[in-house]
């Protein structure tokens, strides 16, 4: 490794590469922050441009977009309760309540710090022990993947709402929606009700936009603004402490940040799992170990740190299976594989030997991107919080039009906009009846992986489910799932008892 560092540094530190990384970050943050636009789409659009660039510049541009986009999704999640990317759904849970309390600046800063630290540590781990982590990831067969997905979905269902049953029900419906379309093994159509456009399944982006953005639009339109009254999305507090993270608050969350980073690295290293799993598992772990779990879902800074760190720590981890095994971790790394191949960089163990200078130059680019990410995101902070001062009456119609355009342009198909509206109505009804929407989305995202791993596992075991409980790694996830559920119930009961005791005390102290 050391022999490659100096040539790699010489290769990376040029004005063009630095400019390209900054541009990628800026594009990624902007696109990630706008609901209706998705980062994989922009990465795919930029891909042909990278073919004409030197390999380090081309790869660094896309990595900048990847990192920026992963963080950018949290901006709209915090400001308007609409995640710009699926992984930011976990950030909505506490980021938006914080914004409603006038602490949007604090939430955004926590998001920046968590993102940058998570990415930085994740990149260091990638550079140091990528090959070793890849060997562990290789031990994950279909049974282990199935158990991991069940663990992730149960965690998400349980932590995203006070009503555990409703959370798990939402996840089940998400998986059900994923089954609509063609069966992955036989290709038979399922629940398409004669609609040709459903043969390929429910389109993902319109589903995401509808569930979060359009449903929020309907929630907002319930209340009319009185004539002459300025109604903003959320108040911006004049208290400076509400717009920054104090050193005391940061210190109190260091354990959360480190734990979420480790979760992110581990999850990112598993092919097929993405930042959304990591964000929710990190959030769940933070809630279950927190001294104040009752604050989660109501504006907990710890919740924002956990979600954002877990979300962004995946980026380094996701490159591990890509670089060492040629297996992309998600849609974006799948597109990035194209850049590597076009430039003659064949992923695998030999990559680090034959093209060590280039690969380590990319790694240096990752570290530099983290530093630039911090400054670019911090500079943009004031601009983003200004959005909160825009009247709802103007902002939400704009958001809905962008969402319609975003949904339409995925496949240039008007059916996708109807899908967006359907899920908007469904999401609104769910919110009215206290069913959380995040598990439904996650069930949809992970449903495909759940089904294919389950079927593969059953084929390998001749239809027996025993390996789920006997294979060591799978058993760990099963035990963790059961533990998580019972621990959440226990913590919830504890918080409820504490609340009852406080109410009783208050009643006793009231003058007769």
């Amino acid at each position, binding site marked *: 490794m050391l022999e490659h560092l100096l040539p790699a540094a010489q290769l990376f530190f040029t004005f063009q590469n630095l400019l390209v990384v900054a541009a990628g970050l800026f594009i990624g943050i902007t696109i990630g922050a706008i609901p209706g636009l998705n980062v994989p789409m922009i990465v795919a659009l930029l891909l042909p441009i990278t073919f004409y660039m030197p390999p380090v510049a081309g790869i660094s541009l896309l990595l900048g977009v990847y990192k920026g986009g992963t963080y950018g999704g949290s901006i709209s999640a915090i400001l308007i309760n609409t995640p710009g990317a699926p992984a930011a759904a976990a950030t909505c849970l506490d980021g938006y309540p914080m914004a409603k309390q006038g602490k949007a600046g604090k939430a955004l800063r926590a998001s920046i710090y968590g993102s940058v630290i998570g990415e930085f540590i994740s990149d260091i781990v990638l550079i140091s022990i990528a090959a070793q982590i890849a060997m562990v990831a290789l031990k994950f067969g279909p049974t282990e993947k199935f158990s991991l997905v069940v663990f992730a979905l149960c965690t998400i269902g349980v932590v995203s709402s006070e009503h555990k049953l409703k959370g798990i029900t939402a996840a089940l*419906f998400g998986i059900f929606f994923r089954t609509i379309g063609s069966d992955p093994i036989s290709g038979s159509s399922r629940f398409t009700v004669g609609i040709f456009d459903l043969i390929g399944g429910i389109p993902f982006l319109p589903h995401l936009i509808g569930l979060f953005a359009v449903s929020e639009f309907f929630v907002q339109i319930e209340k009319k603004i009185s004539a002459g009254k300025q109604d903003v999305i959320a108040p911006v507090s004049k208290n400076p402490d509400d717009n920054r993270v104090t050193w005391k608050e940061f210190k109190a969350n260091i354990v959360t940040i480190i734990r979420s980073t480790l979760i992110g690295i581990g999850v990112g290293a598993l092919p097929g799992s993405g930042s959304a799993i990591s964000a929710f598992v990190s959030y769940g772990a933070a809630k279950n170990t927190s001294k104040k779990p009752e604050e989660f879902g109501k504006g907990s800074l710890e919740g924002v740190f956990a979600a954002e760190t877990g979300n962004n720590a995946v980026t380094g981890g996701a490159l591990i299976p890509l670089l060492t095994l040629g297996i992309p971790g998600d849609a974006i790394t799948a597109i990035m594989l194209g850049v590597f191949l076009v430039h003659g960089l064949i992923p695998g163990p030999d990559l680090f030997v034959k093209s060590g200078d280039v690969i380590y130059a990319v790694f240096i680019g990752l570290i530099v991107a983290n530093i630039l990410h911090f400054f670019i995101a911090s500079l943009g902070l004031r601009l983003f919080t200004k959005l909160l001062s825009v009247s709802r009456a103007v902002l939400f119609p704009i958001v809905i039009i962008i969402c319609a355009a975003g949904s339409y342009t995925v496949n240039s198909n008007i059916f996708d906009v109807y899908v967006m509206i359907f899920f908007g109505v469904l999401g609104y009804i769910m919110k009215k009846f206290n069913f959380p929407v995040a598990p439904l989305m996650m069930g949809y995202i992970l449903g495909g992986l759940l089904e294919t791993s389950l079927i593969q596992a059953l084929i390998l075991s001749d239809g027996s489910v025993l390996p789920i409980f006997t294979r060591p790694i799978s058993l760990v996830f099963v035990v963790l799932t059961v533990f998580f559920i019972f621990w959440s119930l226990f913590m919830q009961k504890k918080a409820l008892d504490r609340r009852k005791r406080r109410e009783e005390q208050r009643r006793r102290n009231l003058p007769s």
Partner: protein
Amino acid sequence: MRQPYLWRLIEGAVLIGLGALILVLIPSQIQNIPGMETETSPSFLPAVLAVLIILMGAGLIAQGFLKPRRDGPPDLTRVVVFRVGLSVVLLILYTVVFPRLGFVVTSGVFVGIYAYLFGSRSILKIAISMVAVPIGIWLFFEILFRIPLPHGILY
């Protein structure tokens, strides 16, 4: 005996109904391949999900009887239902119209309608939004990223 929480019972019943509906629809909506093992058949996972949803529904009904209610009934006054219903209808109308008339023109009109529905009465703000927003989106998608939006008969 404690008074059951009615809304929880309704929610549970709806879930049981939806789960049962999925089970009923499976034979007509999923074409099973003869000779395929049960576990790998296309209807396996949907059937499992339907049963689990029914169980969740039963769990909610049990909760309605066993647990005291903590949250109030959903806020569904006539005004709320009317405003949200109208927004849904307008959104569907927008979706029907914009491929025919064109995205830019239709979006301009609908931004204005929605801003008025939200309660904005500033003619200047509404007018600026009606012009700037669709043009901005058109520039972003069609010019910057070369992603076509429907032009229709107007634009």
